[in-house]
């Protein structure tokens, strides 16, 4: 029954909307609804400063969720996000301690460390065929161990460099925070990769059926490996931006990004089983999660109530549009 009514409405919409995934549209509708509800509490939720600030903060999650999405499209998951973020941030700041060259190489070095973690994940998943849920859990523990040893033993420099501060908080275009521009660039690159390149096609193919992709002569292991490396690198880059935002790196800075990044990707309509999903959805998911957290945080409500509402709202939104199709 819903099929026909939906179809009827869809028929009267412009083409680009008709082609868009209904889940993505609903997610964006939820964003508007959320802002509307927030504005009932305080007008300032609609102020441009607040909205820009949310976009800025969302862009950290956005960068991290981009990597997570790539991995989820493969039907895998990356639980090493917390310490990939932290390692990226800490190592970038640490590199800055080594003279001018260190300052210049700080950001690439931080990302490189994340890529290394991702490569270990990739080797585990692609070559050793360990379920990603467990190997990434283990590398997360290892990365944490390394960072603890490092902090304790090397009196680390943990202030962000000027470049990191500029990337996260500066304004290359007046009025638009650089972090947002960076997210937009990364997002555009991701959209391009997913829709226009052979790599993107194979990611979807592997997510749908790795066996068929392999028998089509795709080096599926390499693709999986690259995806995890990219995910690690993007997590680390998110960490670098966060360090720029906070002007320093800290061990626990990634903890708050694991579950939200998964939730954002799935709220955006990407199937956790892989092979299906669009980046636009992830954008919507990231903004949704960020707004929800922010609005709940600012409304004067005890932490307990906030957690409950957060959970209920996510379930409600998923029930609205994230349901698997009925099978008959």
């Amino acid at each position, binding site marked *: 029954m819903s099929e026909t009514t939906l179809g009827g409405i869809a028929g009267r919409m412009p083409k680009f909307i008709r082609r868009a995934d209904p889940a993505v549209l609903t997610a964006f509708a939820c964003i508007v609804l959320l802002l509307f509800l927030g504005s009932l509490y305080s007008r300032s939720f609609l102020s441009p400063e607040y909205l820009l600030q949310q976009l800025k903060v969302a862009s950290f999650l956005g960068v991290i969720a981009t990597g997570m999405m790539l991995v989820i499209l493969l039907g895998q998951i990356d639980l090493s996000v917390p310490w990939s973020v932290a390692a990226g941030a800490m190592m970038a700041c640490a590199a800055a301690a080594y003279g001018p060259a260190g300052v210049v190489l700080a950001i690439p070095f931080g990302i490189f460390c994340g890529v290394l973690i991702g490569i270990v994940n990739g080797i585990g998943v692609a070559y050793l065929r360990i379920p990603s849920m467990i190997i990434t859990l283990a590398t997360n523990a290892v990365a944490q161990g390394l960072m603890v040893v490092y902090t304790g033993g090397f009196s680390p420099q943990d202030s962000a460099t000027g470049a990191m501060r500029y990337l996260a908080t500066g304004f290359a275009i007046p009025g638009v925070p650089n972090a947002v521009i960076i997210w937009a660039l990364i997002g555009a690159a991701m959209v391009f990769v997913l829709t226009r390149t052979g790599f993107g*096609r194979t990611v*979807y193919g592997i997510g749908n*059926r790795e066996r*068929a*992709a392999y028998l089509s002569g795709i080096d599926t292991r390499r693709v999986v490996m690259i995806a995890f490396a990219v995910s690690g690198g993007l997590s680390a880059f998110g960490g670098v931006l966060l360090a720029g935002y906070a002007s320093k790196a800290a061990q626990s800075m990634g903890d708050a990004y694991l579950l939200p990044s998964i939730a954002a990707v799935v709220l955006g309509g990407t199937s956790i089983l892989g*092979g299906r999903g669009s980046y636009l959805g992830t954008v919507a998911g990231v903004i949704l999660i960020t707004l929800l957290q922010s609005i709940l945080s600012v409304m004067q409500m005890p932490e307990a109530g906030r957690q409950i509402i957060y959970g209920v709202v996510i379930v409600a939104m998923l029930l609205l549009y994230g349901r698997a199709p009925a099978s*008959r």
Partner: protein
Amino acid sequence: MDSAVPLFQMEGISKRYGGVRALEKAELVVTSGSIHAILGENGAGKSTLIKVMAGVVAPDEGRMTMDGREVTFLSPAAANQAGIVCIFQELSLVPDLSVADNIVISDPPKRFGMIDRKAQRRIAEEALARAGAADIHPLALVKDLPLSRRQMVEIAKALARKPRILILDEATSALTAADVSKIFSVLKRLRSEGLALLYISHRMNEIAELADQCTVFRNGRNVASYKAGSKSDNEVVELMIGREYSHIFPPKPAAVPAAAAPRLEARKLSWTDRLHNISLTVRAGEVVGLGGLDGQGQRELLLAFFGVLRGLSGEVLIDGKPVAIRSPSAAREDGIGMALIPEDRKTEGLMLPMTVRENLSFAALDRLSKGGIIDRAAEQRLIDDMVGLLAIKTAGLDIPVGALSGGNQQKVVIAKWLMRQPRIILLNDPTRGIDVGTKQELYQLMRKLADAGAAILFYSTDYDELIGCCDRVLVLYDGAVKRELVGAEITERALIASALNIHGEESPVGLGARA
């Protein structure tokens, strides 16, 4: 008979999937004590019809009656309750459970509220024995069994449920002659016990042997119903495809290109205990068949060439030069140019939820892109060529490939590889579950590719195909080449005898049934 109330009747059943009309006011009458064959091209709606009957799919309109009373089945379990048991085309065995678990799955024997494993095993052993598959161990996991054994388990499972109506949807497509003859005697016994059987198959000879009544479907409608044997094969096929129908197989070239250098060669190829010292050659322009009973190493041989198997011994030569192919991606490289049409198109050949376009260009992405970026115009050109060449029937390039009928899906798998213009084509039982019309197109395509210079190695479970298509046939038995048949030597009798590793000229009684 005619005056009595039929056991089961379907009237005006329609079912649509999006824009596709799978069934259009379909009718069917099923009577006890008879075997009713349903025929039709791929996508004619046969599977959909029986899915409606078995409670898997809810019809959009129409009514069903059983013993004269109207029925609706909300789930397969409900249909089971009513005595309708179905062996689906896509098997419905749970891979991680044991054979015994699967056989009793819908209604396991219980003791103190828990499943009684002893009783369950007994039931399973009985059912397996009844289906003539006592060689299957009830504790084996289904996923460890080859496809042909799984079909036997599926049949045993159906028998264990004591059905009133038993439906077999291409349940024998992967079975060898020996298994089929066992199944046939079981089915005939069930008929004499008063069951109603619905039998769907693309193998005309099976239908000729088994059926009492036939119904032909075309484009979701039943177009004819007749007593078995009252129409000639040609008439039936014409009913199915709705047009004139001539001989099936394309003519073979007069002479095998004898002196041509071998394109693909194996020397003493061995792998674990499945392949033993296999030596063979395939020349450009040749169609070489692999025969023998199912599971004698044919699939492994193809996989070995394609770089899927590890720990091979022996040599593989391409154009006379030894090569070590370690992966499908190496096998498809330029110097080698190999393609494999895999056994199971749904899990190995296609990504069902992805679009026709994405599936078609999937194996050729490297050729279609520059610097990793897909050249969409080139992609479109090549796809148009392929869709034209193979006459793929699809509502569009951007619909999920899973929405195509089986035969068209298979064409997509083949087209996907032809986009690379392979020099060596390995085909693993490509016509399984494909209708006569499409089969014929494939035979012609195969010959056309060979004439254009491809070397083709072709495994089939259907002897007619081997006889009709191949220049030479290698018969495998227990992982070794037992016999090579060339040209006129390729006869059914010779194929069967060497498949069974029998040296005399006699073919055993009953096996002729499949011819």
